[in-house]
């Protein structure tokens, strides 16, 4: 699990006492320092209209953006993390989970279920970076395995949106093994000719990037998203080399052949829908081939 200093979550501007109510409606852009009206920001997919800075969306916001209204059916919500290692750092893991639940109003770092995207039914998993850095513990792994199994059984395309610092160290080896479990499940799904779209958002790193995130038949990233295996600081310390410009950005990864394309948030739904329609057509248009 990698830590990220730069948190690009919208920061509410600290106002003077009288302006408090009003100021809650405004957000300062960390990209260009412009003051943005929250309503406008929200209408613009949480992208700064001045400098194109992409504010981070949580899983609910992503689901709203991608799925057809009211189509999302949550699944596997019953799983909640256990503190099997009895891990404590500055606070206990139990406490950390509790806080994360409260902060995100969710019970884990991924939401899973089914939905339609422009009418195409899919199995969908959306990670939430706000929940302990989107880290993958047993529950995240379990939900992905189950979601993938469901997609295999119901012959649904699978979309997983990643946003994660990696494996959740508070669950030790249990976390690490989720890499193998999810990769195995996705392998089975793909062997049955299932289509898996992997959507990488800022950041996707560590154990998540080195398992299901990079197994997509098609891998799409958001502009400027940080994507990589090792943390930049660790690389600098280990190699004592200066990192190249744009290192580990989505743009860098396209150049290096690691991902298919970068898609702007505004057209993300459209592009995904088009891929889904391509895929479903291929399957339905040729009766002969369908049965294989």
């Amino acid at each position, binding site marked *: 699990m990698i830590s990220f200093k730069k948190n690009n979550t919208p920061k509410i501007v600290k106002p003077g006492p009288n302006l408090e109510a009003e100021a809650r409606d405004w957000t300062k852009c960390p990209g260009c320092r412009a003051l943005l009206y929250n309503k406008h920001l929200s209408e613009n997919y949480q992208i700064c209209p001045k400098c194109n800075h992409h504010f981070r969306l949580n899983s609910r916001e992503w689901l709203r953006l991608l799925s057809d209204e009211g189509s999302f059916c949550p699944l596997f919500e019953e*799983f909640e993390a256990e503190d099997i290692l009895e891990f404590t750092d500055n606070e206990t893991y139990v406490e950390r989970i509790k806080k994360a639940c409260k902060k995100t109003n969710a019970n884990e770092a991924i939401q899973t279920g089914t939905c339609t995207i422009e009418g195409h039914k899919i199995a969908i998993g959306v990670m939430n970076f706000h929940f302990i850095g989107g880290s993958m513990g047993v529950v995240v792994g379990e939900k992905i*395995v189950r979601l993938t199994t469901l997609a295999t059984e119901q012959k649904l395309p699978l979309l997983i949106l990643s946003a994660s610092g990696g494996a959740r160290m508070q669950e030790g080896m249990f976390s690490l093994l989720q890499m193998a479990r999810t990769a195995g499940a996705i392998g*089975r799904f793909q062997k049955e000719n299932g289509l898996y779209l992997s959507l990488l958002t800022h950041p996707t790193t560590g154990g998540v990037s080195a398992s299901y995130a990079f*197994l997509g038949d098609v891998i799409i990233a958001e502009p400027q998203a940080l994507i*990589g*295996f090792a943390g930049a600081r660790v*690389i600098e310390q280990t190699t004592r080399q200066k990192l190249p410009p744009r*290192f580990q950005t989505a743009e860098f990864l396209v150049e290096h052949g690691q991902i298919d394309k970068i898609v702007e948030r505004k057209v993300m739904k459209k592009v995904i829908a088009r891929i889904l329609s391509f895929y479903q057509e291929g399957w339905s248009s040729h009766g002969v081939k369908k049965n294989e």
Partner: protein
Amino acid sequence: MESKKMSNLLSFEKPVAQIQRRIEDLEKESQEKNIDLSVSIEQLRTELKLELQQIFSQLSRWEKVMVARHPERPKLIDYIKVLIPDYLYFCGDRLFRDDPAIFGAMGHINDNQLIMVIGHYKGKNTRDNIQCNFGMANPEGYRKALRLMRLAEKFRAPIVTLIDTPGAYPGIEAEEHGQSEAIAMNLREMFQLKVPILSIVTGEGGSGGALGIGVGDKIMMMEHAIYSVISPEGCASILWRDASKASEVAEKLKLTAQDIMKFKLIDEIINEPVGGAHRNHREATDSVKKCILQWLNQSEKISWNQDLLDQRYEKYIRLASFDHVKNLMKDIRSSEENL
């Protein structure tokens, strides 16, 4: 017990060093003066063994980390020489580079059973170490490993992977060439290999870089090996921006073979010689060989087709699953209640 002279003494091995020195002195005296001191020497040896047993049965997790990383611990090539003396090695990922941090060879164990052994290679001396990147593989290493595993499949040779790495190499080129993709691909494709796979953590099982060759039908760990989601140093520097707290963090991470066995995440612990594998390579490698032979014997009984893949898959569906954790928690609670 055949004990090696230690050039790299760990702090907790100090009491042992004194006894060792005394043994050496007596041996020297016995030889020089041509007198029989064998009784005293034998006594000291017994003392040494007891002391080592005592120390190594009570190692803290951080001490285990140090043993697992011991520079004189047997390395991949030591195992290969003993396990498959008639081995042939194969190089390259057929794409970009031959990564010396991963080495693989095929040969006969016990003269009659062909196996492919693939593992991380940390190197045996400083020059080696540097060439092998201290066992930290680049993507091309993982891709070579996969190619060799597929070759083993063609030869119908069971695969044994020996894990001993601080982790996948955190380098610029490694990122450029898809470290994530390479590891992920191995994790996926190892589920598709129609030959039995055994993974043994012989030393350091460092996170994704270890797991990248670690999907097996059975998973074993050497007695003093570790296996962890993150290095104690890495964890400490994330939690407290202070890598020196690694020893403290090691306790939290529960990364020893004993911890992980208790968690039911591995199938077996392979005994090491008294005082750790670094004190007796022969005994350590023989111990590994014995476990592999037992496993091969079991594997004979499974037919190497879809059944094998189904069993492997089912194992990982259960392993570290939510139910697995739930049941463990139940066990722990009930044993606490019984106290």
